[in-house]
C-alpha cells in the first residue's frame, strides 16, 4: 500500500499528459472530421481527390509511424514542433480521418426528403445542416464514435515513442526501477477507469438521443 502511494505522484503527472492528448484530440478532430466529411461531397474533383488521399494515408499507416514522422521526420526537414504539440497534431489528423469516414456514413443516412422539406420551408443550407441534418447525424454516429473514443484512450499510450511522459511511461519507469509489476497493474486499472467513464457517458448520450427515432 505504501509503495502505491510512493508511485502515485509520478503516475498522476503521466495521467495529465494522457488526458491532455485525449481531450485536445477530441476537441480538434471532431470539427476537422466534420469538415473533411463535408469535403468528401465536394463538387470539385481536386478536393475529393486530396481528401481521399489524406484518408488513405491516415488509415493505411500506423499511428505510431505518423507520430514518428511528424516529430522526427518533419524535424529533419526543418519543421520542428515540441513533443506534446507533435503528438497533438498527429492524433488530430489521424483521428479526424477515421471520424470523417464515420460522419460520412451518418450524412449519407439522412434521407433526401429531409433536405427537400427544409428547402421548401425556406431554410438556408447552413441552417439545414446545423438544425436538421447534424442532430440526425449525431444520433446515427454515436455508437461508432464511441468506439473511436475508447480506442483513443488507449492509443494515447503511443506517445511514449517520441519521449512524452504519459501514464504508461510513468508506470514503465517505476516498474523497471523497482523491479515489480505493480505499477503496470495500477496503470491498467487507471485505463479501465477512464474507459469506464467514457462508456458511461456514451450510454447516457445514447439514452438522451433515444427520446426520438
Amino acid at each position, binding site marked *: 500500500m505504501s509503495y502505491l502511494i510512493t508511485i502515485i505522484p509520478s503516475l498522476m503527472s503521466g495521467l495529465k499528459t494522457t488526458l491532455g492528448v485525449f481531450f485536445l484530440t477530441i476537441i480538434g478532430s471532431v470539427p476537422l472530421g466534420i469538415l473533411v466529411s463535408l469535403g468528401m461531397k465536394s463538387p470539385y474533383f481536386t478536393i475529393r481527390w486530396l481528401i481521399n488521399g489524406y484518408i488513405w494515408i491516415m488509415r493505411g499507416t500506423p499511428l505510431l509511424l505518423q507520430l514518428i514522422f511528424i516529430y522526427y521526420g518533419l524535424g529533419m526537414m526543418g519543421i520542428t514542433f515540441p513533443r506534446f504539440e507533435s503528438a497533438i497534431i498527429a492524433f488530430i489528423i489521424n483521428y479526424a480521418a477515421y471520424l470523417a469516414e464515420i460522419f460520412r456514413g451518418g450524412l449519407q443516412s439522412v*434521407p433526401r*426528403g*429531409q433536405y*427537400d*422539406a427544409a*428547402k*421548401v*420551408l*425556406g*431554410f438556408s443550407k447552413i*441552417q439545414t445542416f446545423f*438544425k*436538421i441534418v447534424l*442532430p*440526425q447525424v449525431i*444520433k446515427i454516429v454515436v455508437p461508432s464514435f464511441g468506439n473511436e473514443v475508447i480506442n483513443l484512450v488507449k492509443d494515447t499510450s503511443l506517445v511514449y515513442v517520441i519521449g512524452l511522459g504519459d501514464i504508461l511511461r510513468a508506470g514503465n519507469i517505476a516498474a523497471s526501477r523497482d523491479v515489480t509489476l505493480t505499477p503496470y497493474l495500477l496503470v491498467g486499472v487507471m485505463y479501465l477507469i477512464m474507459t469506464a467513464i467514457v462508456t458511461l457517458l456514451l450510454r447516457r448520450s445514447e439514452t438522451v438521443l433515444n*427520446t*426520438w*427515432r
Partner: protein
Amino acid sequence: MLEIKNLTKQYNENVIFKSLNLTVNDGEVLSVVGPSGIGKTTLIKIMAGLETANDGEIILNGNPINTNGESSDVNIGMIFQDFNLFPNYTVIENITLAPVNVSKQPKSEAIKQAKELLDSLGMLEKADLYPYQLSGGQKQRAAIARALAMNPQILAYDEPTSGLDEASTHQVTEVVKALKERGVTQVIITHDQPFAEAVSDRMFDFATEVQR
C-alpha cells in the same frame, strides 16, 4: 392565381411533359390525377423549387417562380408523400422551426400560431410528441400544420392518401375541405380517383391532357 405556362421537363431524351399549361385559381382545390410514374410529382417538385424545368414558367400572383431549382421565397407549402417531418423535433417544434428561424417570428408568437393550427387540425394533444409516435394520418396533419405555419399562397400535396387507411383518408378529406373553407388554394397530386372526386373543385387528368 397560379399560372403554369408552356412548362417542359425532360431528362436527356426522356420527355416527362411538354408545354404543360395549367391554371389554379385562388381558393380552388385542384387535383392532378393520373397513374403513378407519369410525372405528376415532378411537376409539383418544380413548383416547390426542388426540381428544375427545361422550359416554360410558373407565375404566382403575377410573380414568376424560379424554375431553376433555387427556391427564392416560400410561396408554396408542400406536403410530401412520406411527410418528411424532422424526426429530431416534436410536432410543435417541427411547426415553429421555420417561422422562428426563417421568418424570424418571435418564438412565443410562433408557438401560439402553431397551437392554433394544431387545434384546428385536431392535433393539439399531440403537440409534444415526436413524429415516430404518430400514426400516418397524424403525421400528415402535422406536416400540413408545418406547411401552413409559413403562410403559403398555395398548399401542394404529393399523394396525400397513399399509405393511409380508410379512416385517415377520410380525415385528410375533411382537412382539405376545412382548409378550402378558409380560402386556402390547394393542389393535390393523386392517383386516388375517389379521393380526388371527393375533395376537388376541378380535376386535371395528367394522362390525357399532357403532351409528351
